[in-house]
């Protein structure tokens, strides 16, 4: 199963949408850099992820969340926060990594 990384804000680009469209159930999506905005609950784009929660495993990179002042914001239920070490573990655990740009 693939690990997808998404680094663009879903408010600004359709990267997350495209990724979700071709993402197999059982795969993982790690939100990094400006992609972490997609992990927030109570936004107009939160449904993108909520609709696939349970089928896809979602992760968000903690240092990118903290940098953007989102550490205390409500994340969508079920998203797991990882650090850089966790990022490496995810890459290792999946068959290949698809870095969406």
């Amino acid at each position, binding site marked *: 199963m693939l690990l997808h990384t998404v680094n663009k804000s879903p*408010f*600004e680009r359709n990267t997350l949408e495209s990724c979700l469209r071709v993402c197999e159930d059982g795969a993982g999506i790690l939100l990094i850099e400006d992609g972490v*905005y997609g992990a927030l609950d109570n936004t107009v784009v939160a449904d993108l992820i909520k609709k696939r929660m349970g089928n896809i495993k979602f992760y968000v990179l*903690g240092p*990118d969340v903290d*940098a953007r*002042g989102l550490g205390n914001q409500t994340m969508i239920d079920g998203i797991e926060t990882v650090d850089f070490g966790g990022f490496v573990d995810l890459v290792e655990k999946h068959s290949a990594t698809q870095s969406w740009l």
Partner: protein
Amino acid sequence: MEEEWDEDGPEVVKRFMYVNRKAPYGTVYALEMLEKVLIAAAFEQDVHVVFMDDGVYQLKKEQETKGINMKNFSPTFRALEGYDVEKLYVEKESLEARGLTVDDLVVPVEVLSSQDLKALMDKQEVILTA
């Protein structure tokens, strides 16, 4: 720029608007825009700074960038008052789409609807967007 400045103020003052649409750290646009604002302020221009779309995230409180090894420039927005840049605007629609309120922001801002922003934008002489 000359360090000595004219005590009488600048000769030409124009209405400048800077429109911030980008999130703070994924690209360099936000930081570069802030530098442009500071330069315009040093020339004592009539500066208006707008935050819309992901630009509103530039003002989010509690930014902590040590983990990504980048400079946290959100405190610099609080310096703008000392530069006499006090016209800060946030588009209401952008704020609401992100589930944010003015309490989430590092500086006091005026919240404008798209309609009001449209009118304000129309009055500017120079507009820069990034």
